[in-house]
């Protein structure tokens, strides 16, 4: 079965079978990553451009590794822009790239909807590597893969996402994907970090971290963006750490083990304490490894659907 769409723009509306297909395909690439020679010729002759308009080390590296391990030719195009650029428009940039015969575009941008915008004007496959506060589908896919790897299933599991839900594309993609796969999703944070009416997406809302994790099998801890404090969304990192930080003390009150995840990069001892991040129930490094396999799966499925 091929994917029904030419692009991966987000997980909203993606059918369960297709998410399943990506996760299953990632399984076989995970196995490739354990081989001495971690390279397959699946995308030989394909040219992929990594179009990053927002700084990223982890995601870009992960995509680039995935692309190279599938034997694709890789071009990196990075410009760090915090606000919208003057000068060449995104449309012109994209059209220029297209004339260079690009097969696939991996794009990250500060503006929501940018990958969709590119998919409307380009012939190439477009993969969203994060668009503003909208979606980050490969992150959610690798999170789901990691959870499934540990629990053997997604259906019926209770996953709590804690942090700045309102500004998080990781949260939104996880909510869409996990709900489709039959998991129960909750979000937790002060009201300033939770979008109004988010219950309408079928998630439970908590404002008390202890209560939130009490019901959870998995806690996905979001990075607290230090720069967001200017928006007056919470008073200080100290206060956030005390009331929403995931610490060993908080987890010990539970009397049971709980799985810890984090999309990275982590702020040690802010949203997550070092002992929890490095603890035995943390899957944080596993997520990084699985990220390459998931991205290989996505690139492979889109690049070979014909």
């Amino acid at each position, binding site marked *: 079965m091929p994917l029904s769409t030419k692009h991966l723009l987000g997980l909203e509306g993606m059918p369960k079978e297709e998410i399943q297909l990506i996760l299953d395909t990632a399984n076989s690439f995970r196995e490739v990553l354990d081989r001495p020679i971690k390279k397959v010729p699946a995308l030989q002759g394909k040219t992929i451009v990594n179009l990053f308009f927002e700084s990223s080390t982890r995601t870009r590296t992960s995509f680039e590794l995935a692309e190279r391990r599938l034997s694709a030719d890789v071009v990196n195009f990075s410009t760090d822009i915090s606000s919208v650029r003057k000068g060449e428009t995104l449309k012109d940039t994209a059209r220029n790239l297209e004339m260079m015969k690009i097969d696939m575009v991996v794009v990250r941008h500060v503006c*929501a909807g940018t990958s969709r915008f590119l998919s409307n004007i380009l012939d190439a496959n477009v993969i969203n590597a994060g668009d503003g506060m909208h979606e980050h589908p490969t992150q959610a896919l690798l999170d789901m893969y990691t959870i499934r790897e540990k629990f053997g299933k997604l259906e019926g599991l209770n996953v709590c996402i804690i942090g700045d839900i309102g500004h998080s594309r990781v949260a939104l993609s996880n909510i869409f994907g996990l709900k489709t796969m039959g998991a129960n999703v909750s979000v937790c944070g002060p009201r300033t970090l939770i979008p109004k009416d988010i219950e309408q997406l079928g998630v439970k809302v908590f404002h008390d971290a202890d209560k939130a994790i009490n019901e959870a099998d998995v806690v996905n801890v979001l990075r607290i963006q230090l720069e967001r404090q200017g928006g007056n969304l919470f008073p200080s990192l100290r206060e956030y750490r005390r009331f929403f930080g995931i610490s060993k003390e908080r987890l010990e009150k539970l009397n049971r083990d709980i799985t810890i995840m984090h999309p990275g990069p982590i702020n040690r001892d802010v949203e997550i304490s070092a002992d929890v991040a490095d603890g035995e129930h943390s899957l944080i490094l596993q997520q990084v490894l699985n990220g390459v396999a998931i991205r290989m799966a996505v690139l492979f499925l889109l690049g070979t659907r014909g």
Partner: protein
Amino acid sequence: MNLLLKNGHIIDPATEIDAIADILVVDGKIEKIGQGLSSPKQSETIDLNSKVVAPGFIDIHVHLREPGFEHKETIDSGCRAAAAGGFTAVCCMPNTNPAIDDASVVRTIIEKGKNVLHGIVDIYPVGAATMARAGKELSPMFELAEAGAVAFSDDGAPIESAEMMRRVLEYAGTIGKPVIQHAEDVSMTRGGAMNEGIVSTSLGLPPMPPIAEDVLIARDITLVEYLGSAYHVAHMSTAGATELVRQAKRRKLPVTCEVTPHHFALTDEAVRSYDTNTKMNPPLRTQRDLEAVIEGLRDGTIDVIATDHAPHSFDEKQVEFTAAPFGIIGLETAIGLSLTKLVHTKILTLQQLIEKFSSNPRRILGLPKISIAEGESANLTIFDTAVEWKVDLDKFKSRSKNSPFSNWPLKGKSFGIVNNGFAYINDKILS
């Protein structure tokens, strides 16, 4: 110009006429209204086949973009769009460059308008309330009014400070001119791109809460109650604001308001396409808000339909959603959308629709009354309520094509206008 309009369905709420009759226009004046009129020599005769003949429509919220942004629209293209859309008059907003904060700008705009289609479309400029619309110093409103400005506004932006708003209301009130407020508490909407709600959350677009509109209107109504000056809410879009204005009217305050066709025809669901032609300010709201403004239109809380015609060039809109400018064109779809969404759905009668496009806005701005009666100047909008058509932006006269209504099927359309001794019918000027 001698023109015989046969078999028009004349509707004029002012004279309470509602009948099929012929109208003979001689030298720009209505010479005779009656049955079976015969045409005098050298006159054009048009059989209207029961098309509606109404007092001339005015769009009191138009961005003509000139001076300063002629790549988006000019006085020439904007007036042609108005004529094609069925308007005999427009009010142009002051967010030009330079802003309309000097009498010379007012005069230039009015003069230029007289050269377009023989001046068939009257332009009534809205002067800036503060210098350069910066909210710091009062504009010379007396001089601007003397030159022809009919109201004052910093539209495009709100008059933010309560103290400044107080002085604007007092000063404009001195000469009996209304203040038109773009009601938006910008401290709540900064960086926003669409209405706050489940759709903005799902799309990850920075939100603009509806209450940003409501809180400014609530403050302004408090000022109006204290000062007594006339206050008009531009492009009102929320359920909360509609209720605030309804209450203010119950208290007999001089508060009026307008709604745009896009706010009664579309909701924020349309933004799911990330089409930048669904990005405007105020943003498209929720179904609940849409129903509230429709109720406001029905019960008379909302006095006026105005388009907030806001042209932007193709390339300006072909960018990331958050980077795109706010606004859509509206002059050439207003009558079609209003008939389709309000009259054919029995929300408004034709009389009520005509009031909201003609007599109400003219009254709010203190413009001369017009009516369809013998001896009066012929200032007419003629429209066909039954014709079914599809929006074809390529055929529009506006220089810009930024509309979310491309290819929309509509029922009802402007047929032509008569004003200042000329008629514009079927794309042709008759003189």
